[in-house]
């Protein structure tokens, strides 16, 4: 449809920095997050978790717990009698409540609901689980070996060649051209191996929910999630109820970053509520968040690149081995697709591997799979630039993908902004600023697909001329403001006249999860189209009052007016005037739009970092950081900047400190914020965001998602900066002080 496509225009509201509608509630403590809801007669629910990395559950004796005063329900896997139809949902059930085996340290094996927190916690202690401890594996390369302990039998896909453990669930391959011929043309070939540790999304709000199941078969659920429709669909499948009988309301959400795109507590709370006949509230402790939710994949990656002396890449190859925790995920495939996506390559071949280990099931983390792949690829490119004496930005510009490039993962790009970010980086004063001793500057690029997906929006014209907009995606970082802005822009009314709310699952049709950087793009597109729908109705109402044809009416600056002198002479009729008389012209006015949005528009960014390495301790200080990213069109620049800054800092944490540390026994050694240390304010400089605007052809205002790409370049950017500062190439994340020191010592 031609109307969907980008059209250049003068914006009045879009691009301004208006206050967000949920701001007051959030600065006064009034906003209700996952754990902030209560219900009359509510019970407190808690999980009992496996202390073993891998164990067969021989028996669970809950009788002593059940006999305790105040205990109203105990559930184990035996209570989940429905087997969901698809494997993905079965995996989720197996993850939220262990079946025959506990697959990781922290895996839920039973749960209790009681009248108080203290009674529930005491009851957990009274549950006796008879475990048969099994050998375990937590490292990706170890798990791939034929002799590794096996998590699941018979789940290996046909794509996996012979000779690998059954832990290798899938292999995928991408690319084009002839890499061997390409390498033959190279003047320089560099081949390196890399490792990255698993990290956690680290949202400050632990998972929490309040579930209420009635014996009439209807249920209500309140939870912090990135997608309450996903919660409804998943939980109803697990509970064996029709989706329409479960109403899910999304609370305010205290961060997600991909980690709240699945369920953990929700089905357990529903089952406890069903069994007890009372509302049940569950919250995770931080230790549980780290042991049993999230995290991202850890990886082991090999990269081989061939280049001519003047820096043209002749061939590129990558092997991306990702462990996704104890169930299937496609992070390895995503890594294999993203690693070389910024480059125009004649010959490229990548392979992605999906491996299971005795760790919690990986959840998405902001551009899942891509940051580690970019770390490996961009590190090799940096090393080659250094070796060939080339400027790393010039080298990237020479090979950069552009409109018409056949991407490393298949599709041919439309208009993209990679070169614009590189040119902006080259011209920025940061790139040419002087460096001191022990300091190094790194640069790297990153790519993310972006996504659209199922989206519904309703836009109500209220009788007094205000506008109520309902959307179905939790607002994770200012999206209600962006939606109100786009509605106001299209309707030609002030921003303050629109209020956007997040509807529950019974109020609006299916909406895809808040993921893939999709909301500003897809919900924005649906909002604009819903506004256009309402405008059509309002034009018809004006036409009716004027006694002219609807086609003879146009919409200008928030009012209907006759289109040209031949249409008749009537003064413009404002949205407010049309709204006030709507009852007499046919009834209430509302626009709506439903779509599976396509045309999200891929996203690129380039980052520059300066670091200083202490040669005595190996400690790294980030001195300066600049982000360049294409936003298509920044609807609310403050919140676009916030995405770029937040993504960069998560990447800095991943590069320098953050790491899941497993002991010999396969248990997580650092399940708390003290030992799993995310960046704090005193670790960091200001993060300078530079927004580029290369319109996305697939959105009426040119919008591209911006949420995820910001985390893709930092791992490599920091590795390149630290390697240049330390004078030695760092190939393993995190670059913690002992590792950096060891590398400095080893080079002598």
């Amino acid at each position: 449809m031609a109307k969907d496509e980008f059209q250049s225009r003068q914006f009045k509201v879009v691009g301004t920095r208006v206050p967000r509608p949920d701001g007051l509630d959030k600065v006064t403590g009034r906003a209700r997050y996952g754990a902030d809801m209560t219900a009359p007669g509510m019970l407190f629910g808690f999980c009992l978790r496996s202390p073993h990395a891998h164990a067969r559950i021989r028996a669970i004796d809950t009788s002593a717990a059940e006999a305790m005063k105040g205990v109203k329900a105990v559930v184990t896997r035996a209570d989940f009698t429905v087997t969901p139809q698809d494997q993905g949902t079965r995996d989720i059930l197996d993850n939220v409540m262990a079946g025959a085996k506990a697959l990781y340290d922290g895996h839920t094996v039973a749960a209790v609901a009681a009248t108080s927190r203290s009674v529930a916690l005491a009851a957990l202690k009274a549950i006796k689980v008879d475990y048969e401890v099994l050998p375990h594996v937590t490292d990706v390369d170890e798990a791939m070996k034929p002799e590794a302990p096996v998590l699941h039998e018979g789940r290996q896909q046909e794509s996996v060649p012979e000779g690998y453990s059954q832990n290798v669930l899938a292999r995928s391959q991408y690319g084009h051209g002839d890499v061997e011929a390409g390498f033959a043309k190279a003047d320089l070939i560099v081949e390196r191996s890399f490792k990255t540790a698993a990290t956690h999304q680290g949202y400050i709000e632990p998972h929490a929910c309040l579930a209420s199941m009635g014996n009439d078969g209807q249920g209500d659920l309140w939870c912090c999630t990135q997608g309450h429709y996903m919660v409804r669909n998943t939980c109803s499948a697990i509970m064996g109820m029709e989706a329409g009988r479960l109403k899910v309301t999304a609370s305010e959400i205290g961060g997600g970053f991909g980690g709240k795109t699945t369920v953990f507590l929700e089905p357990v709370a529903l089952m406890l509520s069903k069994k007890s006949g009372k509302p049940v509230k569950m919250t995770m402790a931080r230790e549980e968040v780290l042991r049993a939710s999230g995290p991202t994949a850890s990886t082991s990656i090999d990269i081989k690149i061939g280049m001519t002396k003047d820096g043209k890449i002749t061939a590129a190859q990558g092997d991306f081995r990702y462990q996704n925790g104890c169930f299937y995920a496609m992070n390895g495939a995503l890594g294999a697709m993203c690693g070389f996506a910024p480059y125009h390559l004649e010959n490229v071949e990548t392979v992605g591997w999906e491996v299971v280990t005795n760790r919690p099931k990986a959840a998405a983390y902001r551009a899942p799979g891509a940051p580690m792949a970019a770390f490996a690829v961009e590190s090799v490119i940096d090393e080659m630039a250094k070796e060939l004496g080339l400027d790393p930005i010039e080298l990237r510009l020479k090979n950069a993908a552009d409109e018409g490039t056949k991407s490393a993962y298949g599709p041919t790009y439309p208009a993209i902004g990679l070169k614009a970010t590189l040119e902006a980086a080259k011209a920025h004063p940061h790139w040419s600023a002087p460096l001191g001793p022990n300091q190094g500057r790194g640069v790297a690029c990153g790519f993310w697909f972006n996504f659209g997906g199922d989206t519904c929006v309703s836009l109500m014209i209220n009788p007094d001329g205000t506008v109520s907009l309902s959307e179905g995606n939790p607002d994770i970082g200012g999206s209600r403001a962006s939606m109100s802005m786009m509605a106001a822009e299209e309707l030609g009314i002030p921003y303050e006249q629109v209020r956007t709310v997040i509807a529950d699952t019974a109020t609006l049709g299916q909406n895809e999860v808040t993921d893939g950087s999709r909301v500003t793009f897809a919900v924005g597109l649906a909002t604009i189209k819903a506004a256009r729908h309402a405008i059509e109705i309002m034009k018809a109402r004006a036409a009716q009052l004027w006694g002219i044809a609807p086609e003879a009416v146009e919409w200008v600056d928030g009012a209907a007016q006759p289109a040209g002198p031949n249409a008749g002479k009537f003064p413009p009729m404002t949205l407010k005037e049309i709204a006030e008389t709507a009852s007499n012209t046919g009834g209430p006015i509302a626009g709506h739009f439903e779509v599976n949005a396509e045309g999200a528009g891929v996203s690129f960014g380039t980052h520059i970092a300066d670091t200083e390495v202490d040669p005595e301790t190996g400690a790294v200080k980030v001195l300066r950081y600049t982000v360049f990213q294409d936003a298509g069109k920044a609807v609310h620049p403050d919140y676009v900047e916030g995405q770029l800054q937040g993504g960069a800092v998560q990447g800095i944490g991943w590069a320098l400190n953050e790491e899941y540390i497993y002991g010999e026994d396969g248990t997580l050694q650092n399940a708390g914020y003290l030992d799993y240390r995310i960046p704090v304010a005193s670790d960091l400089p200001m993060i300078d965001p530079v927004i580029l605007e290369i319109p996305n052809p697939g959105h009426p205002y040119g919008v591209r998602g911006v949420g995820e790409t910001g985390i893709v370049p930092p791992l490599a950017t920091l590795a390149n900066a630290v390697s240049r500062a330390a004078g030695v190439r760092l190939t393993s994340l995190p670059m913690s002080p002992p590792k950096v020191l060891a590398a400095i010592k080893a080079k002598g």
Partner: protein
Amino acid sequence: MSRIHVSTTINGDDVDYLCEAGDTLLDVLRDQLDLTGSKEGCASGDCGACTVRLDGRLVCACLVLGAEAEGRSVETIEGMAEGEELHPLQRNFINKAALQCGICTPGILVAAKDLLERNPDPTEEEVRYWLAGNLCRCTGYDKIIRTVLETAAEMRGAA
């Protein structure tokens, strides 16, 4: 389980409650008094989401027992605005986009207000170290630090 009777002052009002010996001040605020503005991010003193003032000193409410509030004065995010009038930090956090998800915001506001009362003209480094105990995973701290510095200037009448 027997309970302890506590008489305290919260945001200037006299409050009485009964708590279990093991209940933290954060448990009491959130679960008994419905003052859910103070958040639990860790319950171990590592995230600062539960930051309140106790007799004028910043504390993690998750590290104070409910029983310890006896006879003392507690200030939470709910008491930061004077009626309709937001504290300049609250107003500027909205206007300068110093929050994304907002879960860290109550703790950061309580801590930042305390800083500006002690030091009306902090340096960037002083703000960064003062707030080092308040984790924010969304913003990368940039807009938070800037907003605290700009609000300090505004309150000094320098802006």
